[in-house]
């Protein structure tokens, strides 16, 4: 029991330690890359390229967040989870409620 708890705690710590720096490192790397390319190619070309990339990203974002089917999946998931929690609660409530007997 103690070993398992310790193992889970170590796992959690390890995941936090590996995740947090990597998330920040990713952003720095992205910024550095942009600056490097910017210096190499000159500002005019880079601006056009960045604009194209941004437009492409915006299209992706619209597809990801505003689309009909993906949103339906998200709402469906939330509905299933809420439904499961409610059904479980109802099941327990029904089991624990004292039965009324008619004489």
């Amino acid at each position: 029991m103690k070993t398992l708890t310790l193992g889970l705690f170590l796992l959690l710590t390890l995941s936090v330690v590996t995740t947090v720096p990597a998330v920040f490192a990713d952003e720095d790397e992205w910024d550095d890359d942009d600056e490097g390319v910017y210096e190499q190619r000159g500002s005019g070309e880079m601006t056009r390229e960045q604009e194209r990339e941004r437009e492409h990203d915006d299209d992706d974002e619209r597809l990801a967040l505003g689309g009909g089917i993906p949103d339906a999946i998200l709402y469906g998931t939330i509905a299933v989870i809420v439904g499961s929690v409610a059904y479980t609660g109802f099941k327990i409530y029904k089991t624990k409620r004292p039965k009324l007997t008619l004489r």
Partner: protein
Amino acid sequence: MNTKIIPIIFLILFLAPIPAFADDDDSEDAIENLGWVALGAGVIANMPFILFNKWRKYAVRAGGQSLLIARQTVQFYKPVLNFHIILNSIGYFAGMTHGLLLVNDLNSISLSLAITMTVLMISGILLRYTSSRNTKVFNKLLHGQFGLVFLLIALIVLHVLTGDD
């Protein structure tokens, strides 16, 4: 004997996803391979536990010789349960790390998957570590809901298939 086997199993499990990353030349294959590795790990983590529990329940109900065998296999329940908890915890934290690293590409399917995984993980943790009887009963019923399990499998398959978009 057990103390020697467990680190070897862990090493194999930790090294298993590496082939999925190794295929850098064809990134679409790498993404799908990682997804199938995750699904395979999920099957290994859950199927033995589910089958063991179902068989034990069936044996207890059937009585006679089956009941005797079921009583003899009680000693295997704890190791199977611990294996289920540990492998699912690894899967959960690996999945969340993967999600945080690629948070820029977050879409509705990934978000749905993260929510479902978190609900199942929290119910599992509460089921294992709480001492309150009511909470235990509630989480036992919630953790074993087939609707949630099917939703999780469907979302993982969808996430794997749409991962390279």
